C-alpha cells in the first residue's frame, strides 16, 4: 500500500465522519501534491534564507568582523527581516526592459533549484519523492537555470546584465558536461538511477574502518563534481555572471526587491542542494555510525561541505572567464572521461 493510498483512505475516513461523500483518488493526489510542493518550497527557501545568515556570519568571522547579530538570537532571523525588506521594496521595471522575460526570469532560476530537491534523500525514510530516475531528474532540472539567466540578461536591457548573463550561461553549459559525466560514472557503479540506491551502495566498510564512499575510488570524479558545483552556483572563484567588480552586479544589476531576492535565494539554496548532492554521490549520503540518526549524519556532512564552499568563497580571487572556460573544456572534460574509464574498469574487475 503506497503512501498515497494510505492518505486516501485516511481522508476517506475523515470525510465519512462528517458525512461527506468519498472523494476520487485524483483529489487526494492533488491535495498531497500541493502540500508536498508547498513543504518543499518552504524548506528549500528557508534553508536558502538561513544560509544567507550562516554565510554572512561566517564571512564576517573570517574577516575579523561580527556580522549580523541583532535580529533574533545571534541574528538568526536576519534573513526574515531582509525578506520583509525586499518584499516591501519597490519592484522596479527598467523603462525599455522586455517585460515578460524580465519578470519571469527570477522564477525560471529559482524553481528548478527547488524542484531538484524532490529526489534528494535526507535519510533512509525522509525523501520528498523517491523517483526511480532521480539522478536524471536532478541533472535535467538543474540544467534549466541558464535559461533564466539568459532571460534576465536579455530582459534587463542593460549591457552589464547582458555580459553577466552570457557569461553565466556559458559557464553553466560548459560545466554541465563534466558534471554529467562524473555523475554517470557513479550511476555506472551503482547500477541504478535512483538516489536512494546511490546511498545504499555506499554502506559498509572496507577493512572494517574505511567507509565505502565513492570518493575513494572516484576521487577525480569527486573533484570534478565539486568544481562544477562551484561553477553552477556561481560563487566567488567562479561568480562570472555576477562579478561585481567588473559588471557591477552582472545579470541582477537591474533587479530590485523580491525579484533580486529570488536570485539570491536560488544561489544559497543551490549551494546547499549541490553540497547535499555531492554528499549523496560521494560521501555516503545519510549513512554513518549508528549513534547518530541518519538525518543528522546527512546534515553534518552537508554542512561540512558548505563550510568548505564558503571558505573557498572568502579566500580565493575570481577567475577570468576565458581561463575558467578553458579549464572546463581542456582539463575537466578529459579528466571526467578518464574518471569514467576508471569507473568502467572498477565495474569490470568486479569491485562494485
Amino acid at each position: 500500500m503506497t503512501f498515497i493510498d494510505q492518505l486516501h483512505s485516511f481522508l476517506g475516513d475523515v470525510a465519512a465522519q462528517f458525512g461527506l461523500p468519498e472523494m476520487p483518488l485524483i483529489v487526494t493526489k492533488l491535495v498531497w501534491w500541493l502540500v508536498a510542493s508547498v513543504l518543499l518550497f518552504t524548506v528549500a527557501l528557508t534553508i536558502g534564507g538561513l544560509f544567507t545568515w550562516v554565510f554572512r556570519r561566517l564571512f564576517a568571522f573570517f574577516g575579523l568582523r561580527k556580522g549580523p547579530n541583532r535580529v533574533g538570537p545571534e541574528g538568526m532571523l536576519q534573513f526574515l527581516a531582509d525578506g520583509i525588506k525586499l518584499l516591501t521594496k519597490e519592484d522596479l521595471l527598467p523603462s525599455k526592459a522586455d517585460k515578460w522575460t524580465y519578470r519571469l526570469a527570477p522564477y525560471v532560476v529559482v524553481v528548478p533549484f527547488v524542484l531538484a530537491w524532490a529526489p534528494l534523500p535526507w535519510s533512509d525514510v525522509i525523501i520528498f519523492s523517491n523517483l526511480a530516475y532521480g539522478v536524471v531528474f536532478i541533472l535535467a532540472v538543474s540544467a534549466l537555470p541558464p535559461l533564466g539567466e539568459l532571460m534576465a540578461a536579455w530582459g534587463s536591457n542593460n549591457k552589464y546584465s547582458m555580459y553577466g548573463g552570457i557569461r553565466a550561461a556559458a559557464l553553466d553549459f560548459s560545466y554541465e558536461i563534466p558534471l554529467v559525466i562524473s555523475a554517470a560514472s557513479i550511476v555506472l557503479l551503482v547500477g541504478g538511477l535512483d538516489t536512494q540506491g546511490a546511498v545504499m551502495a555506499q554502506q559498509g566498510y572496507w577493512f572494517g574502518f574505511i567507509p565505502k564512499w565513492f570518493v575513494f575510488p572516484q576521487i577525480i570524479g569527486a573533484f570534478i563534481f565539486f568544481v562544477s558545483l562551484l561553477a553552477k552556483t556561481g560563487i566567488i572563484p567562479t561568480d562570472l555572471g555576477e562579478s561585481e567588480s567588473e559588471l557591477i552586479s552582472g545579470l541582477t544589476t537591474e533587479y530590485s526587491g523580491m525579484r533580486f531576492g529570488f536570485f539570491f535565494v536560488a544561489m544559497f539554496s543551490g549551494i546547499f542542494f549541490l553540497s547535499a548532492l555531492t554528499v549523496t554521490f560521494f560521501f555516503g549520503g545519510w549513512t554513518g555510525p549508528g549513534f547518530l540518526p541518519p538525518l543528522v549524519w546527512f546534515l553534518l556532512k552537508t554542512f561540512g561541505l558548505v563550510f568548505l564552499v564558503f571558505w573557498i568563497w572568502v579566500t580565493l580571487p575570481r577567475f577570468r572567464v576565458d581561463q575558467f572556460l578553458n579549464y572546463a573544456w581542456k582539463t575537466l572534460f578529459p579528466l571526467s572521461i578518464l574518471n569514467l574509464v576508471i569507473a568502467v574498469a572498477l565495474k569490470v574487475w568486479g569491485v562494485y
Partner: protein
Amino acid sequence: MASIPLMGIFKGMATTLKHLGRPKDTYEYPEVKRGVAERWRGRIALRLDRCIGCSMCAQACPNGSCTMTDFEHNPDANKKGTYPQVEVAKCIYCGFCEEVCPVECIHVTREYELARYQRGALYSPVMLDKTENQIRAEEPEMGDP
C-alpha cells in the same frame, strides 16, 4: 610563481582559517564608541569669556566657515564687540583657528558626532560655548528630530 600547483591556494586558505578565531576588529558602534586621540580635531568651540575679538581665526580660516559677527557679551575683554561664528557644516577641521588664536579662546573639541538632518548649521558665539549635547537638547531643530 608557486612551484607546486595549488600550494599557494592551500596556504591562503590556511591563513584565512587562522583568522577565523581571532578577536574581532570591529565594534558595535552606537553602543560601543571608539575613543579619539587627545589631539583630535573635532567641532570648533569657543571660550566666550576670553575672546578679545581680534578676528585672527576668521583670517586664518581657509574656506570662510569662520566669520566675525557683532555680539555683546563681555565688553571688558572684547571691546570691539565682535565674536566668531562658525558654519559647522562647512568647516574642514584644519585647526588653523586654534593655532592662530592669541588667547586660547577658539579651540577644537573632541566631539565628532555631528550628523544633521539639515544641511547648514551656523553656530552663533553662544552656541559655540556649549557642548554638542547641550545644543541638541536646547535647540532640537538643529539636531535629530
